């Protein structure tokens, strides 16, 4: 029954079937008023049903050209060009940028996980500042949305990081002796803070609400290029007796975030906590939220200690090899680790 999988209400589905409209073709040439009559529903409802049907049967305009068979499709060739001209968000640690292929990518969802104190929030705040670096300095010149579920966002720290970033930009100017006024964009540290939209979320309901609302918010704001959720885990680790529900909600959230990233060409960064798991004979550290969440991101980075150093390990990426890079958390934010430690290591 082709109509049984249409995204319409169960009773409408039932009515269609009992009135003999079991296939899409049977609905292709019926008028709304006729349908309304047959099904004993309002004409508005009939119009809605026919809209859904036409979308399903693809009678909307088919894209011209040999290869774009369906609306909205892109060839890999076009995508390649788009990708080549896209800019990443730098992490301010060049070693980390290298293993990430330039930095955090737009149109992708990147998950970053680690133990408490390793620097997840630090990296989140650094990205919220770095996304605003103007294009003259190789950045995106965009705005940031910071969704704080744990209360870990410290605005004084954001100011510190912004000051360091502004300082770096000034030094870059001096280094390259950019005298032309057009290139010189003097950004005050506080201006960075103005472009970070901060949402404090206290329950999982609010978390879902914010993520649903983002589509409208971003269409109105424009220029948002990164959405950071710190952390995606917190409200889903407690109070959930129904694990199956949790899996469904998380799955739905993951898809919405993917869609957001693609639709608005922005980067989504999800910070995750760790938990222990019994695997392959011993207890292991692993990112929280379980097996079904682990596929919800395009990229995954695990921050961990190796001896005295902080390292970032690229665990999942569609185009890059797994690799590790050291980084440091300094007064200025995330930076390269001290020179005498091991460099980028490919696994």
């Amino acid at each position, binding site marked *: 029954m082709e109509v049984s999988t249409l995204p319409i209400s169960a009773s*409408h589905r039932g009515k269609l079937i009992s009135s003999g409209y079991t296939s899409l073709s049977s609905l292709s040439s019926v008028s709304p008023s006729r349908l309304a009559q047959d099904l004993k529903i309002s004409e508005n409802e009939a119009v809605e049903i026919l809209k859904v049907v036409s979308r399903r049967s693809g009678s909307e305009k088919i894209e011209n050209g040999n290869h774009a068979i369906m609306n909205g499709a892109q060839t890999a060739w076009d995508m390649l060009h788009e990708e080549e001209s896209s800019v990443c968000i730098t992490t301010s640690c060049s070693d980390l940028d290298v293993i990430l292929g330039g930095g955090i990518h737009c149109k992708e969802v990147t998950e970053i996980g680690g133990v408490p104190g390793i620097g997840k929030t630090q990296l989140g705040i650094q990205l919220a500042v770095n996304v605003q670096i103007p294009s003259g300095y190789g950045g995106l010149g965009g705005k940031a949305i910071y969704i704080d579920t744990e209360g870990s966002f410290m605005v004084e720290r954001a100011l510190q990081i912004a000051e360091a970033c502004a300082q770096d930009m000034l030094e870059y100017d001096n280094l390259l002796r950019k005298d032309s006024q057009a290139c010189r964009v003097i950004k005050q540290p506080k201006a960075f803070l103005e472009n970070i939209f901060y949402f404090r979320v206290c329950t999982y309901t609010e978390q879902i609400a914010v993520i649903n609302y983002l589509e409208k918010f971003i269409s109105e704001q424009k220029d948002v290029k990164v959405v950071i959720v710190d952390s995606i885990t917190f409200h889903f680790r407690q109070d959930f007796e129904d694990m199956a529900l949790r899996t469904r909600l998380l799955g739905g959230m993951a898809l919405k975030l993917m869609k957001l990233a693609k639709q608005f060409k922005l980067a989504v960064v999800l910070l995750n906590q760790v938990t222990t798991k019994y695997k392959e004979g011993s207890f292991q550290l692993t990112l929280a939220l379980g097996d079904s969440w682990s596929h919800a991101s395009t990229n995954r980075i695990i921050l961990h200690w190796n001896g005295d150093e902080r390292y970032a390990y690229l665990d999942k990426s569609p185009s890059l090899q797994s690799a590790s890079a050291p980084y440091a958390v300094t007064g200025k934010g995330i930076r390269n680790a001290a020179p005498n430690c091991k460099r980028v290591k490919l696994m």
Partner: protein
Amino acid sequence: MANKLISEMGLPRSMANVFIARNIVTAKDALSLSEFELMEVLDVGLEEVTRAVAHISEISCPPYQTALSLLEQRNQNEYLAGHLPTRLKGLDAALFGGIPFGVVTELVGPAGIGKTQFCLKLALLASLPTSYGGLGGRVIYVDVESKFSSKRMIEMGLSSFPEIFHMEGLAQEMAGRILVLQPASLSEFTESLQHIKVSLLQHNVKLLIIDSMAALASGEYGLAPPKHHPLGWHISFIKSLAECYRIPVVVTNQVRSQSRDEASRYLFQEQSRAETIEDPPNFNSHLVAALGIHWAHAVTIRLVLEFRSGQRVIKIAKSSISPSMGFCFNITSSGVSLLDDEGVEMMGPEANTISWEGHIGIINYE
């Protein structure tokens, strides 16, 4: 926000009625179901559901602020931009002012190290009138193990602020501002949290101290903690109290011995052993903070107190602003005092380990 009623959200009448007819009354009820489930439950098409959910989400979404307005608010409204100074110069400098408002600060260390002393001093400092550099407000002290001693607090007061304390009646007034609660069980504590919330608003409470959180949890659950975090709700609630009322919340935590099963490595680390630096076997570092990794994620600032080579040390183990610094200290008549304001920078994960060397104390085992 989660409990906002759907009937009051301005949805089109027909849609609102459908929700209510199916007993979906609050935003939480609606958003706990996926759009697909809502379609089935409400017997409505997908597009309508999507519109309704978008509307509900917009209304129940918490308001946003720019980080700049957040900063300006703090600077304008709060004492020292939201910090309670501990009067330990080195520590205050590293913490950019002191114990921050609005977040949970944890003190963890073995028994007898000085956690309660530290808490008593903080309570004193918060109750000092603002003219003397205090917060001039009330303090709620949740004393689980009956360690609170007003005598000791007055001794600290006399020792640190002799000129104030000799003033007629001031000492009593300040003591009167400290409300001590002694819950006998976790469930009693849970109940009293609700009362605390009310008091926070009504009685100008400026500091909340819980000494100790671990004792509450272990008392109730005996040997094996249940699978899902028993303190999960409390963690969220306490954090929200800190944030909503913009007060510092200080919680003390105990230590326990590290079990052999304790995980410290990821799968990818296990399998590439050659490249990872083995943590040197350290006979002294068999202690970890109680309450587990979930709690550790939830606190914003963690101060670790420990014995190291016979010396008491206080370290900043987790803080988004401060580097990992450690300071040697002693317990004196005026509370806790640092031996040296300079402090020592702690490298690596050392900041998080708790060493215990030769102290005759009772360590709680879970």
